[in-house]
């Protein structure tokens, strides 16, 4: 596993170095001041260096490090999401519970590998407790809307995202001790697909997929990005217990889910009249702007692998 991890790490550093060099050459040749696209590209690449450093650090600490990392990602994502919802003073206990109880408990359950509970803790217990608490507070104004907004918030930001570190707990025969690499595979393909969709979209984008939702999502970017990311996934099969073909198919599926995640996130942002979820990650926007594709990809990827390989 150590050799494979080193390979992956060096590969990422190589890709980022090439990206930085290309961006530096483009910036050098471009008229000053830099056009906003190039400015944004530089910021994005810089942020990628920091994110890769952060993820690598978490991986050094193993399962605990990755669980802590994603608990933090959930916290940041949920904070961005709740900021955009219409809360009332009576929702206070529900909101505090989401941050102070739901996030720690969900990730603790993954740490102790209690699949029977972490897979239903939020959709059963939290989803029933939240309207109950809200009802106890007695404020019925826009009750249904308030409860369901927050339910969906923890579904996206906590439940779905927690399935990324949960991959490490899957008992896949012959893959003992390599669970972290499966996480690396998922993150690399889904985030790679985002980047490749961005590149294909910028280079060849003509026909918009959903002009009412996002001006930057094009069919050319979507098809080019997902096809190339799936090929990349197939090429990364050595990280996984899959054959190259299986790795490619699973990567394609994760990337398609990731695309829908981005599309849904764009629809929410459009509805709330904001461009980005937040400003945590320079050039990218907020945590959810970066994690939206993982939100949709992680649980589906998790359950397919769990069904077919364990």
């Amino acid at each position, binding site marked *: 596993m150590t050799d494979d991890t080193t390979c992956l790490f060096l590969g990422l550093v190589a890709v980022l170095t090439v990206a930085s060099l290309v961006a530096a050459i483009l910036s050098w040749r471009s008229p000053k001041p830099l056009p906003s696209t190039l400015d944004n590209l530089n910021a994005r690449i810089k942020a990628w260096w920091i994110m890769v450093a952060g993820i690598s650090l978490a991986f050094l600490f193993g399962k605990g490090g990755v669980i802590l990392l994603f608990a933090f990602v959930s916290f940041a994502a949920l904070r961005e999401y709740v900021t955009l919802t*219409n809360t009332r003073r009576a929702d*206070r206990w529900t*909101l505090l519970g989401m941050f102070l109880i739901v996030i720690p408990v969900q990730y603790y359950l993954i740490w102790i590998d209690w699949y029977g509970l972490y897979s239903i803790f939020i959709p059963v217990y939290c989803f029933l407790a939240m309207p109950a608490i809200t009802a106890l507070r007695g404020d019925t104004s826009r009750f249904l809307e308030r409860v369901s907004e927050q339910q969906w918030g923890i579904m996206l930001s906590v439940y779905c995202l927690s399935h990324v570190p949960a991959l490490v707990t899957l008992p896949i025969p012959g893959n003992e001790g390599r669970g972290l690499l499966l996480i690396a595979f998922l993150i690399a393909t889904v985030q790679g697909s985002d980047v490749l969709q961005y590149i294909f979209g910028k280079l060849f984008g003509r026909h918009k997929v959903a002009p009412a939702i996002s001006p930057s999502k094009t069919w050319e970017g979507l098809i080019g990005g997902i096809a190339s990311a799936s090929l990349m996934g197939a090429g990364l099969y050595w990280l996984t217990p899959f054959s190259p073909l299986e790795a490619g198919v699973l990567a394609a599926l994760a990337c398609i889910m990731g695309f829908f995640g981005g599309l849904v996130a764009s629809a929410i942002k459009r509805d709330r009249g904001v461009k980005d979820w937040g*400003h*945590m990650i320079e050039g990218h926007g907020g945590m959810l702007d970066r994690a939206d594709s993982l939100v949709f990809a992680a649980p589906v990827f998790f359950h397919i692998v769990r069904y077919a390989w364990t």
Partner: protein
Amino acid sequence: MSGASLLQRASAAVLAVFARAVTGVRPIWAGTSPNGPLRIYFANHASHGDFILVSTCLHPAERGRTAAVAGADYWNAGRVRRFIASRLLRTVLVERNWVERRADPLAVMLAALDAGESLIFFPEGTRNMTEEPLLRFRSGLYNLAAARPQVELVPCWIENMSRVLPKGAFLPVPLLCRVVFGAPLKLEAGEDRKVFLDRARAALLALAPRKDGTPQ
């Protein structure tokens, strides 16, 4: 009282780290720059966290010379509050009660300005608990502006803090906050008190996000 004590600097730094961890607060400099002459930052007020948020958004040097104007009746009630207000935080305590007060609030604030301190000031006079975005301004801001016309009056719109830590709450709910700093105001020569206060209130309100509650 000139310059912050070591304890005050340390607690301001700790509070700034905490405020950023909970609210990810970002300053938006819309109409002025972080560095400037002596200032009165006047802001909307709905939460105890408000002045911490404004102070967090300031550069450390400016933070070190900035004090928050707060109600003496609240902060002198009890030893813990008095310790927090006088030793941990940089506050200028003013007595709001007309009948019983011993020190003229204006004189106390002017003394702080003359000692080289910038002030964080809440012109509504109290925390706003209504559904209105901003209460009517009391005359304190006008009196300060009339007495020290060279001091810049910077409007600061604090966004979301009332959702993070409303009145009576102890635990903050983590939500993203912003502080929008607008263009400084000055009292025009011969400007009427009410005209000035309305203008200042409108300048602060203009920094607020749209009415549907979404950020700009």
